[in-house]
């Protein structure tokens, strides 16, 4: 890996981490367990379309581990890791199907996969299927949050493409 690439990825990780930590400080808009805007996803979506899958996975893994340290709850690492892993799988599988100006769709898919991953983890950890009652709400919130972060990522990509076409 070139130094330039390494620096870019490190910068992305730092930006994602900052967004993540700032979002922790914002009181939840909807007080339902699992509903969250997930602004750090903007960086993940961006990375999915700009870098190779393994490079994106590195950024996400670093952000997850460091994020868990900053938020101070190790249990939440299990939730965010299962969510982020499925989210990445979902987005990477769409990477080659989705044209450049439909990237927000990819983000919605990622958000849905993320929420499914979290609810699976919740069922495992809480040893009850009662949490599944939350699923429809999480799907709706995932679509809305995913569309929002996806549009942000779309704007970001459009601007950066114009500046320095790869």
């Amino acid at each position: 890996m070139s130094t330039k690439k390494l620096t870019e990825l490190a910068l992305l990780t730092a930006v994602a981490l900052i967004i993540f930590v700032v979002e922790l400080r914002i009181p939840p808009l909807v007080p339902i367990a699992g509903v969250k805007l997930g602004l750090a996803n903007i960086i993940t979506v961006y990375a999915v379309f700009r870098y190779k899958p393994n490079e994106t996975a590195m950024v996400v893994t670093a952000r997850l581990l460091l994020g868990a340290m900053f938020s101070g709850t190790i249990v939440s690492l299990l939730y965010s890791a299962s969510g982020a892993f499925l989210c990445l799988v979902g987005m990477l599988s769409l990477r080659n199907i989705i044209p450049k100006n439909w990237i927000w769709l990819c983000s919605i898919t990622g958000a849905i996969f993320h929420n499914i991953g979290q609810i699976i983890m919740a069922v495992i950890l809480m040893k009850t299927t009662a949490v599944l009652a939350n699923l429809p709400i999480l799907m709706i919130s995932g679509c809305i949050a995913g569309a929002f972060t996806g549009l942000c990522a779309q704007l970001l990509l459009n601007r950066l493409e114009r500046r320095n076409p790869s």
Partner: protein
Amino acid sequence: MSKKLLAVLICLGLIFISSIVIVVIRANQPAGQMVEIIQDGATLYTFDLSKAKNQTIRIDTPDSGYNVVTIQDGTIFMSEANCPDLICVHTGVLRSENVPIVCLPHKVIIHFVDGEGIA
């Protein structure tokens, strides 16, 4: 627009619309009154909310965490907890099957169950 893109669009649309339909149907159902409190996979209490007396229930978790559940005039809510996010407290009164009160860090769930016992 390619066929694959169209398929993705339709799938996402279906998920979104069917979720909304489920939520709306559930919201319009006459809410059952049987409430169940689960902690770490074990059912601690099951009772009829409309007949329950006003009271507070304290749930302790092994790692010195606690949640205080309050039942007041036929409503139930989490009044106090020492979990880091306090989402369970902010969720407020249990209103429908759509939104159970969940405390992820302490593995506590308060939710409505059907009369037949099918959750």
